[in-house]
């Protein structure tokens, strides 16, 4: 293979199935619409949103973000290990990712319970509606992420399967979930 062909191949390389990137693009567009509606409503009643945002605990948001970033790092390590043929290490990294996801989900449920105890339900005001909606739909994505991680474990456990393309496709899904959370965190917790 010539150098030019090698360069072209590298330039065209995307991790996993290229089809998964269609999902990433489409979900990004859908979430952009969600964020657009949030910002529109926020601009209509900035005081209400500021007051309601003050009820959120920024430390919990930061903790959740760090946990998910850690999960993204571990899934990236999983891909690297799998590429290098170190399947035991790859499996260990998937389990770390799943553990981080479980911590995130538990933390999120505690946060919801705390807010409901304080009287901030899903229909208390526009901010609460958005808060529960955005974190809720992200929660659903994360639950699907557990299935996705299960597929990675299934692939890595048996030498007959071990599709590197599928492992990378699943990792791409996981990074998408993480990326969406970073945007949700910024909008709900940080932007004031």
């Amino acid at each position, binding site marked *: 293979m010539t150098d030019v062909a090698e360069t072209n191949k590298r330039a065209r390389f995307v991790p996993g*199935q*290229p*089809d*998964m990137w*269609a*999902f990433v693009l*489409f*979900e990004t567009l*859908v979430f952009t*619409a*969600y964020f657009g*509606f949030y910002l529109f*409503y926020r601009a209509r009643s900035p005081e209400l949103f500021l007051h309601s945002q003050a009820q959120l605990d920024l430390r919990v948001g930061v903790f959740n973000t760090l946990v998910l970033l850690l999960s993204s790092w571990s899934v990236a390590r999983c891909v690297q290990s799998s590429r290098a043929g170190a399947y035991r290490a790859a499996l260990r990294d998937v389990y770390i990712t799943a553990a981080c996801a479980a911590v995130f989900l538990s933390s999120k449920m505690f946060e919801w319970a705390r807010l409901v105890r304080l009287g901030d339900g*899903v*229909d208390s005001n*526009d901010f609460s*509606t*958005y808060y529960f*909606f955005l974190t809720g*739909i992200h929660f*659903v*994505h994360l639950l*699907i992420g557990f299935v996705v991680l299960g597929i990675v474990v299934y692939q890595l456990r048996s030498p007959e399967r071990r599709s590197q393309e599928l492992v990378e496709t699943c990792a791409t899904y996981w990074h998408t979930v993480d990326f969406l959370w970073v945007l949700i965190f910024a909008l709900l917790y940080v932007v004031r």
Partner: protein
Amino acid sequence: MSTVLTPPESAATPPAGPPSGRWHRRVAWHLRHNPKRELWLAWWTLVVFYNLFFPMFFVVAQVQPPPQPSWDLATQVHWFHERHLGIPIGFGIIFAIAGMTAVNNALIAYSMRRMSTSRAFGYAYLLIYSLSAIPGLLLLCIALIVGTLRPERDPKVIGWLYDFAFLSFDGTMGVFLIGSLIWMVAILIDKNRVFPKWFGYLNLCNALTEVVVAPCWIFQRGVLAWNGQIAWWLDMVVFGVYQVTFVVMLFQMIRREDFGTGPLPDLPRKNT
């Protein structure tokens, strides 16, 4: 392994191809000899159904986009009165064509039968979509026609029909969600390349936007109400993209169909 089945006698010794010349001769040839005529009939039924479905709901009956959930009883009664002709005519036509959904579902189930996956996917899809037509289509039509044609009833009953119609229509997307997920899984694990994998992921996107319609049971105003920007407008945009895509995907599947059991062949590339 690919086993090519011998088509029934109508296609046993067909002419080499459709005759050139006048269009009615070509149509007659396809009706008599084209081995894919049943599939094309099902696909055209799908196209005709959706080309009637949307105008009936949006233009003739004018029940979509949905009205405000928070209107008072007098406004709801007035809303029915304004549509005393449109709803019976529009939904009369919907009742007449509702049976076409069975053909649509059958074509989608056929696509799963053509895959390398278990036939259980196709059967599950057929079953769940047969059930979903009741809350997702027929109950809305029945409730709104009753409300329109019995204007002398107590306004509270009319108001109940109003809520019942739109909540059954928008609030029961879960069955469609499961159907989308079944199709998605079948596409993703299929080895016969019936559909591209990105279409499987698009099914997931569609299913995820149907999740967000469920809160319409709780909200009477705002983005998550049954006429809200997220629960209805955005969902409709995604559904529209999904719908056009799956009609095109089924069209391509029929063009590529070889009535075998192995991978679907690609279409020959056009010479440039």
